[in-house]
């Protein structure tokens, strides 16, 4: 552990480097990061100011130093060692300083030029926390000069961005009751919007807003209604709602003009045994449109009613303006874990169309109202059902898609995966224990090549696939597209690659040697474009040689 003197030296090094970065031709504006700057995040391509890149979650950058013509010169510039499994973080970058999270709930400020740490905030968990899927964290939010972090034990912490000093700490829920938090918060105006995780542990989901200055809770929207509330009739009338899941573990999107917050919800609980919760189980597996000032539900759309296959709708909602059938629309689109790509009118929540983008067997189609026409024999069974597609991890999942305003294409990772779904007795809720009622693992005689992956380039207003880039195994990496007409993503083999955004032609690759559970981002350091992505337990930065 560095002593105080070393820390001071590191801090002053950081300040020096920041000063050096400030000497570049386009002077950075530094902190504070005001709400107005967040509204215009896409106009600050030298920075990466929020999880989705901007409020529309385009995960796109207008930087164009790295292009299809020169991407072959991309080289690793530095590596930051995390020494932790499953690094899922998407960094925040502000004027040459990168803020990243490290499992389980640490924050590191890095000099974006050298990859050297400026400060480290190490969060000690108070004890064992039940988590279904690894001690992960997906990133931070920033407002003013404050960073916002969720912790695995379901806390929200405000940190001073210049030092890592704790400003305030707020409990979201009791982690002893299996509540946990893994997602990056989203700033809307003066509020911090925070989701919760733990549907695999039998929580009752919610979405919260906290005052960014004080940490006081402004509102809470329960994603599983209590008896008597609208939607409660979809839970069968028993007590299942108390552990009904519908968590909110992935960051949503925001339309400032409509003043609507879009946020996906997860699976109902127990995951694989729906017998105790007859009905559609609102608002699980849904997209919610909420008033960010009050938390009032404006509309909702449920992708998978009465889910029994763990097909959360915790995918990134992407906000796109485009004409559908000749009529200009404000769209919210989402490739769903259930294997269908959906386009909705984001003003009203009206369903426009849905198309499968991977092999789908569970539903024949999505009808005109947006409801699936379900095929028989597609439920988990006691002995295991291996005929259900897509697999338990879905056709798509939480990794970021990317929308390129130049090509007008939506790029996203897709998973063609064969899995086996089985059902066991409905579990009783127990603190510290899982709450599955079954599972969705591999089959005894599945061949590896029965599962594979692809990056899809799609016309979002029609669902028409423009091109596909096939990879060996189902990916967990998100996608970044840039004005250099490039698309970046990574494979489970650890190959980080760049494609021509127009044609899908592969132009560059780098073998990082381990699985990727994250999305790339790009920014400027000393005026030069860098791209980073976590591969295995390291964060790697690439730049032109």
């Amino acid at each position, binding site marked *: 552990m560095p002593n105080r003197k070393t820390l001071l030296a590191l801090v002053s090094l950081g300040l020096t480097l920041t000063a050096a970065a400030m000497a570049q031709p386009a002077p950075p504006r530094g902190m504070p990061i005001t709400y107005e700057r967040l509204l215009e995040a896409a106009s600050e391509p030298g920075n990466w100011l929020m999880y989705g890149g901007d409020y529309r979650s385009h995960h796109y950058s207008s930087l164009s130093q790295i292009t299809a013509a020169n991407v072959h010169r991309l080289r690793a510039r530095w590596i930051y060692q995390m020494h932790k499994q499953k690094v899922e973080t998407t960094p925040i970058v502000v004027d040459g300083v990168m803020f990243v999270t490290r499992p389980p709930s640490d924050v590191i400020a890095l000099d974006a030029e050298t990859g050297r740490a400026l400060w480290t905030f190490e969060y000690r968990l108070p004890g064992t926390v039940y988590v279904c899927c690894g001690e992960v964290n997906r990133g931070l939010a920033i407002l003013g000069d404050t960073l916002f972090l969720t912790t695995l034990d379901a806390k929200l912490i405000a940190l001073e961005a210049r030092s890592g000093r704790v400003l305030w700490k707020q409990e979201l829920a009791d982690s002893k009751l299996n509540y946990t938090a893994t997602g990056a918060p989203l700033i809307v105006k003066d509020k911090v919007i925070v989701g919760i995780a733990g549907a695999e542990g039998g929580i009752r989901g919610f979405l919260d807003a906290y005052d960014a200055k004080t940490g006081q809770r402004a509102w809470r929207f329960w994603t599983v209604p209590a008896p008597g509330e609208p939607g409660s009739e979809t839970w069968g009338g028993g007590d299942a709602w108390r552990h009904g899941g519908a968590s909110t573990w992935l960051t949503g999107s925001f339309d400032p003009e409509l003043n609507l917050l879009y946020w996906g919800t997860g699976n109902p609980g127990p995951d694989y045994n729906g017998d105790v919760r007859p009905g559609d189980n609102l608002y699980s597996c849904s997209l919610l449109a909420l008033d960010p000032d009050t938390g009032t539900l404006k509309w909702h759309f449920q992708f998978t009613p009465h889910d029994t296959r763990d097909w959360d709708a915790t995918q990134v909602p992407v906000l796109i303006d485009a004409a559908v059938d000749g009529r200009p629309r404000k769209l919210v689109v989402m490739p769903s874990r259930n294997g269908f790509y959906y386009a909705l009118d984001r003003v009203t929540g009206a369903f426009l169309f849905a198309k499968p983008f991977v092999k789908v067997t569970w539903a024949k189609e999505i009808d005109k109202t947006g409801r699936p026409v379900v095929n028989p024999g597609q439920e988990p069974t006691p002995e295991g059902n291996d005929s259900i597609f897509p697999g338990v991890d879905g056709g798509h999942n939480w990794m970021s898609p990317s929308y390129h305003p130049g090509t007008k294409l939506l790029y996203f990772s897709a998973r063609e995966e064969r*899995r086996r779904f089985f059902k066991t007795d409905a579990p009783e809720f127990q603190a510290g224990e899982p709450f599955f009622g079954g599972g969705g693992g*591999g089959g005894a005689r599945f061949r590896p090549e029965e599962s594979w992956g692809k990056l899809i380039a799609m016309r979002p207003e029609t669902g028409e696939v423009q091109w596909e880039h096939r990879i060996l195994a189902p990916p967990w990496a998100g996608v970044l597209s840039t004005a250099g007409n490039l698309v970046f993503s990574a494979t489970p083999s650890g190959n980080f690659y760049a494609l021509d955004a127009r044609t899908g032609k592969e132009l560059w690759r780098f073998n990082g040697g381990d699985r990727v559970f994250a999305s790339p981002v790009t920014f400027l350091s000393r005026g030069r474009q860098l791209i980073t992505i976590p591969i295995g337990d390291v964060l790697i930065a690439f730049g032109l040689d």
Partner: protein
Amino acid sequence: MRTIFLTACLSLACAWPATAQNAARQPHALASDLPETNPYASSADIAIGKRLFEGRCGHCHGQTGEGGRGAVLNSGRFRHGGTDRELFMTIRNGIANTEMPGAFNLPAKEVWRIVAHVQQLGKQGTAEPNPGDPAAGAAAYKTSGCATCHRIDGHGAALGPDLSDIGSRRAIRHLRESILDPSADIALDYRAVSVVDRAGTRIDGIHLNEDEYSVHLRDMAGNLRSFMKSELTGMTLPRQSMMPAYAALPAGVVQDLVAYLSSLRPGRSTARAPEVWLFDRLENVGGHKTTVLGQPVVIDSSVGKAVQFDGVDDALDIDNHPLAGAATFTWEAIFRPDGGQTEQRWFHLSERDPATGLDTENRMLFEIRVAGDNWFLDSYNQSGSASKALMNRTALHPLGQWYHVASVYDGKEFRNYVDGVREGAAEIQLAPHGPGHTTVGVRINRVFYFKGAVHLARFTRRALSPSEFLPPPAKP
């Protein structure tokens, strides 16, 4: 070249839930944290455990624990321990370097309930009969060429799965399937891959690794090979196993092979599996090349096929000393003496000097003396300066019948038997022989020819009790 793979199974078949946010490694359970006995073992718990088992475990272990790709669970023998606590640890943590995953995402209570059900399965006893003869299966293993690709206790090739403990890892039904239809379930670590380079050369091998741009394999000669896909004109992952199907083998032979493979378990003594020589052909005995002297003939007899020697110049010289290196042993043979000259040295194992290629004085022998219409046994063993002949002139047996004879050495005492009855014993210190060769029908130096027939020999590298001997042939 024959490419034979006894397949095992699998895929990365984690039966445990992949979940909303995908799985990751979890802390292992520690034995010290667990009660010794199962706190959830009521009949209600067992019933719940049964349902948990059927969803999570049955597709590998069989729905009634009969085994398959996963180990047999209804025999009551558990390779990694059968106490409640040990079973809990196995289920919770999985087994390293096997296909058995850990049930990290299962509440402790549910793990205990599975333990309760598995204990019930174990009380059933093995449901699947295993009627084959392991000794005959061992011989069939050799004659079928299995060792061309498979390895047992360090002997054989490494192209296919090592079978040294296959009996504890695979159920009988799975072993049978692997022989008859090897493609039904191919071990992930032994999948075939075939690539074609730009020169048009096809390279077959075992798939070791692959990413989007490269593929890695162990070729048929055992070499590790790396190819960039951009440099290949073709690549296929055949769905067929590289092991040919042995569906044409007689059912009895398959049964014997299965029995032999099923007997290959850890702790089956440090000894190698018994080596069995069937005298059903002349050119090859026990998988070893022979030199045929005179005109011995293969006959059908009441005990099965045998090689018959004329007592004049018939013999086989077999290029192997089957007990080389054995510190203890049991040497059995089934033979029929038919008279002839008084002294007959009919089975001779001889050490060779590797430097000169000449026979040393170290040897083991079955001899007989013919006395009228009877014979008696002379068993001889020499190692260095220690030597001993066991001969009981009063133990006379009629000629013209089939007999079982045995020489046994337990590290202290040398004993010999006819039809399971001990005829002699002596204490002696015998050092293991080095490699060499064997003659059947004559002494190693081509004197004292044998008149009669030999059906079978079995060499076990430990001292068997008479009850473990092969059964003596029926007498008329």
